[in-house]
């Protein structure tokens, strides 16, 4: 199989414009005859379904949530990037393109990324017109903030709830189409399989989660916007129900899974507190603007803190190691996510961790409080302020900037971060890998498209902050409405597909068999316990740093675990009822398959780049060693049944506009 990116010819800046004016269109009268299935109502799915509905297609939209508004996108905090250059600070489409390519450690497609940067501007216009209440300055114009890895202010935000506000905007646009009848909404419906007719994706099998009924839906094409697979690791910042099943079922039907080993581990999350832990909470990247990361220099101090005999406050300044500032003087605490995460792991592996589990470092705001306090005293004309005044004024400034995050931290940990340094540790956050798609966002299965976090397209080996929201909405509002025409324009005479035809009946039976299989094991271990064990294997061997031996043994462990699952899992209840344990069982079964492919991909990629760090490939100073000569390609995996090895297909990446450089933050 030859993988063709289908990036249009022409200069970088002209590709998308030319594409749009030459792409085959579907006339309005024909659109009315065409049906599209969209799975997912996050930013990518809701924006796609709404826009395709507006254009006149007949859309059926599915989500396993009880309402489209609850998709995981709702939880995004920090913001969304766009090359508006409203701050007049030298931003441009090219700069956003370049930052994204570089931030991704040169493992993404130039053409796709440039298009993303181009349409980023339209997203902000659209969102504002929908009534998204972005932050504004006193002149009533839109405000921006900065995020890691870039030198301009291009991030638009709505307090700490940007994802919520953008998703509500898309949800409202979707609701309008539902009322108009152009979108038929199926809540609490989980897609469990793709149906192919003559090699093309023509429908899905879904389970009605309320009744357990297995239902068949046909359409001219299928769009998956089903999010990322971070929950392979069990613990992550993702919502509890995020899962890989839709994408994985597509892989089982022939779609390729690209770069699955590229996962993003976010450095600032609240550490694990016990084995009952169900998920991890992100503390926004913005905190690293003012917080200083450190661990004690002495092992005995770290031990005393872990045992509760000392606190961070007892450690004298000269006994602290501000290791990011020491190792990366140029960027200090603001190094990119992958670098900061690894450094925290190194410190804890050396025995310097500061929580009872040994897996936490300090994020300290004391210096910021002092700095802001003095400056606030100055502004208020208080000369020679006493220490208490400085602290009081400084804490006030910190509260204005980060109040909601500090409050969230205190709710979860019960500790006051104004008085005690915060404890943080890296956690799985985002998955850059996903279904392989070409420029049209179409997978290698004709008629099957993938949008948002579910595809692999734009972030290479590492995603920059505030770029996932941008990509999800770009894909849904501005890309798929055009690119879907490349497929559908050949289908305008194709009559509706019959969901009672053989292909559908066969797929339905396969789904029913799979459900019976997990229900009939009737073993002794809960689904949750398997998921936890899988997560631990993945985190220990395919997490922040990886090596060949570890990965090989991890693969064996995952294979064994999968076997054990089908021998000893216990799923209560039946298929014919509302049964969340059954839903979970099917998802965990797919996670176990996905986990193996992630491990394989990590083994294959004998280099370190972005979120993927192979211990064998590092510089003498312990920095990532990329190997462009051999690995400047997209690794796309084909499933061929577990009796055979998955097959690797390579898409070479061409860099015509940027020069490949080593990222340095020293």
């Amino acid at each position, binding site marked *: 199989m030859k993988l063709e990116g289908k990036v249009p010819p022409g200069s970088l800046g002209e590709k998308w414009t030319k594409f749009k004016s030459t792409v085959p269109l579907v006339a309005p009268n024909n659109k009315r005859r065409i049906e599209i299935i969209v799975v997912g109502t996050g930013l990518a799915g809701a924006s796609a379904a709404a826009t395709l509905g507006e254009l006149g297609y007949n859309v059926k939209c599915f989500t396993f949530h009880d309402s489209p508004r609850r998709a995981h996108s709702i939880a995004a905090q920090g913001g969304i990037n766009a090359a508006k250059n409203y701050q007049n600070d030298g931003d441009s489409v090219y700069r956003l393109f370049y930052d994204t390519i570089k931030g991704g450690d040169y493992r993404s497609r130039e053409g796709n990324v440039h298009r993303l940067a181009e349409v980023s501007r339209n997203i902000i216009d659209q969102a504002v*017109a929908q009534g998204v209440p972005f932050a504004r300055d006193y002149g009533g114009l839109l405000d921006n903030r900065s995020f890691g890895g870039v030198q301009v202010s291009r991030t638009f935000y709505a307090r700490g709830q940007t994802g*919520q506000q953008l998703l509500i905007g898309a949800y409202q646009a979707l609701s309008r189409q539902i009322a108009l009848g152009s979108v038929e909404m199926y809540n609490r419906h989980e897609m469990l399989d793709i149906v192919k007719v003559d090699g093309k994706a023509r429908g899905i099998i879904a389970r009605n989660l309320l009744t357990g009924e297995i239902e068949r839906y046909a359409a001219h094409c299928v769009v998956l916007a089903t999010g990322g697979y971070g929950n392979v690791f069990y613990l992550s910042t993702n*919502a*509890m129900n995020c899962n890989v099943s839709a994408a994985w079922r597509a892989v089982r039907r022939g779609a390729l899974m690209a770069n699955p080993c590229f996962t993003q581990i976010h450095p600032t999350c609240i550490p694990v507190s016990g084995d009952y832990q*169900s998920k991890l909470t992100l503390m926004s990247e913005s905190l690293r603007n003012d917080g200083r990361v450190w661990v004690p220099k002495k092992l005995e101090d770290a031990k005393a803190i872990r045992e509760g005999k000392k606190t961070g406050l007892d450690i004298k300044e000269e006994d602290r190691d501000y290791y990011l500032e020491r190792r990366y003087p140029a960027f200090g605490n603001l190094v990119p996510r992958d670098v900061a995460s690894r450094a925290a792991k190194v410190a804890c592996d050396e025995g310097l961790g500061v929580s009872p589990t040994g897996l936490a470092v300090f994020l300290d705001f004391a210096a910021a409080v002092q700095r802001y306090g003095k400056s606030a005293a100055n502004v208020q004309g208080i000369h020679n302020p006493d220490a208490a005044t400085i602290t009081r004024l400084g804490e006030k400034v910190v509260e204005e900037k980060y109040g909601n995050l500090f409050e969230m931290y205190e709710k979860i*940990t*019960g500790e006051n971060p104004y008085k005690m340094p915060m404890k943080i540790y890296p956690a799985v956050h985002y998955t850059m890998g996903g279904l392989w798609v070409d420029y049209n966002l179409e997978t290698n299965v004709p008629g099957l498209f993938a949008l948002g976090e579910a595809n692999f397209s734009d972030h290479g080996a590492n995603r920059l902050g505030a770029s996932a929201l941008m990509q999800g909405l770009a894909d849904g509002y501005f890309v798929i409405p055009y690119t879907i025409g490349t497929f559908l324009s050949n289908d305008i005479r194709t009559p509706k597909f019959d969901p009672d035809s053989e292909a559908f009946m066969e797929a339905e039976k396969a789904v029913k068999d799979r459900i019976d299989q997990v229900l009939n094991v009737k073993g002794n271990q*809960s689904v949750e316990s398997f998921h936890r064990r899988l997560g631990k294997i993945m985190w220990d061997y395919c997490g922040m740093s990886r090596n060949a031996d570890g990965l090989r043994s991890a693969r064996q462990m995952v294979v064994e675990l999968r076997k054990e699952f089908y021998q000893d899992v216990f799923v209560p209840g039946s298929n014919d009822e509302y049964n969340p344990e059954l839903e979970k069982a099917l998802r965990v079964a797919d996670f176990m398959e996905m986990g193996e492919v992630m491990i394989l991909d990590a083994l294959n990629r004998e280099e370190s780049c972005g979120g993927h760090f192979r211990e064998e490939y590092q510089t003498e100073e312990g920095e990532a060693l990329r190997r462009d000569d051999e690995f400047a390609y997209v690794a796309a995996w084909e499933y061929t049944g577990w009796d055979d090895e998955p097959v690797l297909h390579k898409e070479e990446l061409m860099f015509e506009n940027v020069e490949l450089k080593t990222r340095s933050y020293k």
Partner: protein
Amino acid sequence: MKLTLKVWRQENANKKGSFSTYQLDDVSEHMSFLEMLDVLNEQLIEKKEMPISFDHDCREGICGACSMVINGQPHGPMGGTTTCQLHMRHFKNGDTIVIEPFRAKAFPVVRDLVVDRSAFDRIIQVGGFVSVNTGQAQDANSIPVEKDVASQAFDAATCIGCGACVAACPNASAMLFTSAKVSHLGILPQGQVEAKRRVQAMVKQMDEEGFGNCSNVTACEAECPKGISVENIARMNRAYIGSVLGSETSVS
């Protein structure tokens, strides 16, 4: 700590429900409330019983999925906190905790603590949007919006659609939820064009869904995890009257 839990169990909307009592021995104060229920569910599964169903997803207080009444209060005893953000350190060893679903005619029970809140979606569908197709928007900075106005709209827009306001209200009224959306869009210039039609349509749908009337009890505001203010209800009432009186716009 040790706890006694009295949990509402109901197989589906058509069956009668009742309370079941469970003992939990080893609850850590660091657990979240939902993690405590996870632990109980693991124990039930070990005994081959059906675990307790409850809606949840983000566990960060933003998706609005979690929904239960804890000791008589939607989302439990802490103000401004969703169930998923509630931690066990706010309970004491030996406590008995009563856990029920949100109860309202318009929110039928699905199973145990899970209810069907799709009535909220239908209220939004009749008018909770700005009619602007993708690609029709002008430049985002072409209409300046006063900072305070944007901020007020934001305050209303933070509603997570959880339904605690309905569960808290003796009349099971959805006025707080509906007014939050009417305010969010009505305050902003982008939403004003359709404001009259919107408020009429949404109020009408709210009534048709079987939500009760507002009698100014304001329990909704007290239990709302996002601090949505009853001022929104007053604003909606004014907008509604204004839209009916002296206007050509009417939704019948």
